[in-house]
């Protein structure tokens, strides 16, 4: 029973248990008689919740399919199916930024035993080369 504000008010009438309604609900959601007899009212309530959650998901899927059908009908060029599936499943490869690429290169370098040459070392090497070339000119 609902009060003036629409809230459910528990009365003797609402608290009355109906085996027929309970069993009928179980049948509606696909629970067999033997399963129903074994399960508690709490477990039946869980089955009912899960059933409606699954139904809601199926409903969303149906609407999404219709919407996607209309979407692809309207676009000029249909993308490859694999690309669409990858995008929907979140498998799309992301483009790396310059920083990410540098980090990746550093990691691989360290992994394969490479030496990291810092900017200061480069300057030192350049200066040494310059000295060598001057010396060779003198000679």
């Amino acid at each position, binding site marked *: 029973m609902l009060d003036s504000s629409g809230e459910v008010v528990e009365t003797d009438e609402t608290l009355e248990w109906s085996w027929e309604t309970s069993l009928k609900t179980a049948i509606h959601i696909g629970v067999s008689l033997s399963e129903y*007899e074994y399960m508690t009212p709490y477990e*039946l309530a869980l089955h009912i919740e899960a059933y409606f959650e699954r139904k809601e998901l199926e409903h969303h899927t149906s609407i999404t399919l219709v919407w996607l059908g209309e979407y692809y009908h309207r676009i000029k060029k249909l993308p490859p199916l694999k690309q669409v599936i990858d995008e929907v499943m979140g498998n799309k490869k992301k483009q790396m930024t310059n920083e990410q690429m540098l980090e990746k290169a550093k990691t691989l370098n360290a992994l394969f035993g490479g030496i990291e040459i810092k900017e200061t070392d480069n300057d030192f090497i350049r200066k040494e080369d310059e000295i060598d070339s001057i010396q060779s000119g003198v000679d």
Partner: protein
Amino acid sequence: MPKTTKADKNTTVIIQLDRPREVRFGHKALKKLMALTGKSLASISEEEFSLEELERVMFCGLLSDAKEHGETLELEQMEDLLDYAKSFNEVMDAMEKALENAFQSTEKN
């Protein structure tokens, strides 16, 4: 205290009698309980039980376990069976917990 296991939403209640037995109030047990006691479901958790009624309630609660073990449980056996329990409180506790588990509300509600 009875050997009951109820962690989080674990609804299993075990009582040590002649062997560990599960107390469970499925729909079949509840229907039998109503037929045997003449009580309504709404009043079951509120009313106090006499010793004789307790035997009937526990008989219904132990039926599914007996079936699983291929036993035929009779109401007449209950007096002897419940004597295996350490105390009367242990039986009461197991019964209350099993009834509470059977009628608890889901997390959503």
